């Protein structure tokens, strides 16, 4: 049996109609999952143009609607959706920085991706961009907003930090110890991943997708594979889809466990971190046995999956017992609980307005989960529940993770039962995909919903791959949650969101 491919509605919209259509879809309960720009050559249907695809999704039932608009190839401009959708405004800024597409009347027209030393007029995603030129005439300074007033001072942190973490610059405006405003400046790690996909065969694109964000190998690989399979009309067997669901839960487990320990470590309770590191090491070794890689690379392949072995229920239960006792100890510690409670609150309205995803959203009362709204596998059984908390503080994000590890262990046990080791590829992926096509993959990665949209060219090569990591949606929530938090609580709040820099900045 093969999976039924999810139908996508594609609407060619007029530029003038775009805001109206988008508003209708948003009102109808859709969310803007992804915006991708494409350079259509003269041979494309409709001729040479810059084509922008807006992907709106909702579920259940799984609904995916695309609005396509065509812009002038030489002076691309489009009406902004920033007033309708906050993520929409950020996607537009990203497109302007990478493609030069101007969002007209944007309420927050600052640069997003472009650092000040990027050469003026050079757009890396343009077809004729070529290799990056040397730093030249810059776009000019990009000053931080200065908060003025009695006793306000600034603390600049990063982009190089004291620990082994990715680069990001944080500018705190502080009175005493209370944060008045935090500005996070990211995009220090622009690698041009989306450009690197262009022209590759789908098989050669997979290793790239696995490495979009090191801790989300399965999530990104799966979203990419689902998109390519849809574009190529490839069916995937039930067994392979079950194995992929299992891998996704194994990824959620090792990341959540590491975070649970890191949150305890950030409040100075190191012993629980030492214990979670031990549990995590068990999980990583299990990953190695299951896929041959500690971070689960190689488990998801185009058209199927490959397992070297299947985890036993006894091992999963032993891990579960360990995690539960660690969580009980953490929550029973008065100081730890006091540090977690009420810290860095993200209100449900703010989380909804910002379009937050994943555990950050579920800790603020938004129950979104792509395993339910956009299921790539449907036999999760009774084990799949979505824990939701409403307080939106560090404690809520800790609790959501703790409960999700429980759910993941139950799911992994359920999924592993009935799976056998081996390579399950329904049809060997054809080296040349016959016709140009497009596909969308939506996956609930451990950090949140990952959306990947793929367009293939006539020779079956990748023409455009657009990846929307949940971090892209969640980063703006961090400064919002931190208002009125004290400076020494920032690392704890930051860890409770644990957003990816690499996945955000492709």
């Amino acid at each position, binding site marked *: 049996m093969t999976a039924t491919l999810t139908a996508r509605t594609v609407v060619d919209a007029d530029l003038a109609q775009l805001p109206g259509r988008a508003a209708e879809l948003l009102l109808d309960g859709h969310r803007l999952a992804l915006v991708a720009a494409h350079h259509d050559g003269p041979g494309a249907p409709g001729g040479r143009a810059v084509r922008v695809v807006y992907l709106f999704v909702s579920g259940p039932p799984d609904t995916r609607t695309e609005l396509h608009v065509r812009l002038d190839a030489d002076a691309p401009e489009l009406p902004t959706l920033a007033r309708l959708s906050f993520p929409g405004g950020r996607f537009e800024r990203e497109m302007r920085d990478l493609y030069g597409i101007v969002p007209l009347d944007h309420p927050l027209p600052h640069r997003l991706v472009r650092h000040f030393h990027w050469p003026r007029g050079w757009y890396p995603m343009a077809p004729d961009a070529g290799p990056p030129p040397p730093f030249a005439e810059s776009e000019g300074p990009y000053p931080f907003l200065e908060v003025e007033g009695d006793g306000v001072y600034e603390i600049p942190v990063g982009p190089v930090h004291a620990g082994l973490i990715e680069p990001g610059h944080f500018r705190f405006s502080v009175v005493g110890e209370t944060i008045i405003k935090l500005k996070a400046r990211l995009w220090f790690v622009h690698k041009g991943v989306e450009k690197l996909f262009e022209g590759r065969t789908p098989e050669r694109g997979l290793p790239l997708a696995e490495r979009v964000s090191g801790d989300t190998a399965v999530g990104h690989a799966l979203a990419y594979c689902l998109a390519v399979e849809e574009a190529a009309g490839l069916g995937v067997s039930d067994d392979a889809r079950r194995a992929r669901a299992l891998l996704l839960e194994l990824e959620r487990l090792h990341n959540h466990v590491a975070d649970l320990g890191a949150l305890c470590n950030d409040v*100075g*309770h190191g012993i629980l971190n030492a214990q979670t590191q031990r549990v995590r090491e068990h999980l990583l070794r299990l990953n190695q046995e299951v896929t041959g890689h500690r971070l689960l690379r190689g488990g998801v392949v185009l058209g199927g999956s490959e397992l070297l072995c299947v985890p036993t229920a006894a091992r999963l239960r032993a891990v579960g017992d360990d995690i539960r006792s660690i969580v009980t100890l953490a929550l029973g510690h008065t*100081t*730890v609980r006091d540090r977690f409670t009420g810290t860095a609150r993200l209100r449900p309205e703010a989380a909804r307005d910002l379009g937050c995803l994943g555990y950050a959203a579920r800790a603020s009362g938004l129950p979104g989960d792509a395993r339910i709204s956009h299921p790539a596998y449907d036999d999760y059984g009774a084990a799949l529940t979505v824990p939701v908390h409403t307080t939106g503080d560090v404690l809520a994000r800790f609790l959501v993770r703790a409960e999700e590890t429980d759910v993941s262990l139950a799911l992994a046990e359920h999924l592993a039962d009935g799976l056998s080791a081996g390579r399950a590829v329904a049809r060997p992926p054809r080296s040349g995909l016959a016709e140009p096509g497009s596909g969308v993959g939506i996956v609930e990665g451990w950090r949140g919903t990952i959306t990947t949209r793929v367009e293939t060219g006539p020779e079956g090569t990748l023409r455009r791959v657009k990846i929307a990591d949940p971090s892209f949606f969640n980063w703006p929530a961090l400064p919002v949650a931190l208002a009125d938090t004290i400076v020494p609580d920032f690392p704890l709040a930051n860890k409770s969101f644990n957003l990816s820099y690499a996945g955000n900045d492709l």
Partner: protein
Amino acid sequence: MNAAGAVGPAAVAAQVAAVVAGAPLLAGLMRQVRARLEGRAGPGIAQPWRDLRKLMRKEPITPVGTGPAFRTAPLLLVASTAVVAALMPLASTATPAGVRSDLILVVALLALGTVALALAGLDTGTAFGGMGASREMTVAALVEPTILLAVFALSIPAGSTNLAAIVSGGIHDSARLASPAGLLATAALAVAVLAETGRLPVDNPATHLELTMVHEAMVLEYAGPDLALVELGAHMRLTVLLGLLASLAAPWGIATTASAAAVALGLVLFAVKVALLGAALAAAEVFWAKLRLFRIPELLAGSFLLALLAVTASYFLTGE
């Protein structure tokens, strides 16, 4: 007489030498205890000495624009702590320095080191230096009165603020130590020592998170030999403060006569007592977490209250 006359200065020198040489070992011991309790192997107790040796061999670097406050602070910190080590009756009360070991002088010397570092933090002109200095001063302003008051409570039965007199009083009249005043003062002093030395639950000496730091944030700009001095100074402060606690709460074994054997025994017992206290503190820290910054004043106000109660109790319950 000559031999006895030489023992006193020798005891002072031995105390200082023991503190300087032993302080990094104490820090190493505490880290090792913590590592073992957390199930880690740990680097061994000599690791802080190896770190100091490494730092000492590096070239000295000072940030552009820093002045004398930054350059002199490490020396001032180590020197003032060494003087405290000389003054305090750690191994012997019968030293030439003992007559000068006034309680207020000792607390002032400790405060001098704190202030020197805070000024150095401000001198760097960085946000972290200023932030750390501000936090350290907040903590210090709450801790110093507690130390003063706690030792003052212990000084009432001795009738003197001279530490040597207080300690020898404790040796001869052990009942004082178990009195309500003695116990309350010891408890207050213990909390104050935690705060003063930047231990959990006030500060986390093991963190790499610059925004949560108190003590470490002030000294972020130090490198090479200066950093070695700052680290050595921090280890020495921990040693003398634990030594002060040990001398006041458990003074047995401290030499009260100028005999070489008694001083030697006192030194050994001092090392044992401080090592035990340090190990106990490290073990306790495993079970603690760091308090929210704004809760620290509550903790320190509590310890101040204990010290105040100790003073009150020593007046009313002893009827002196």
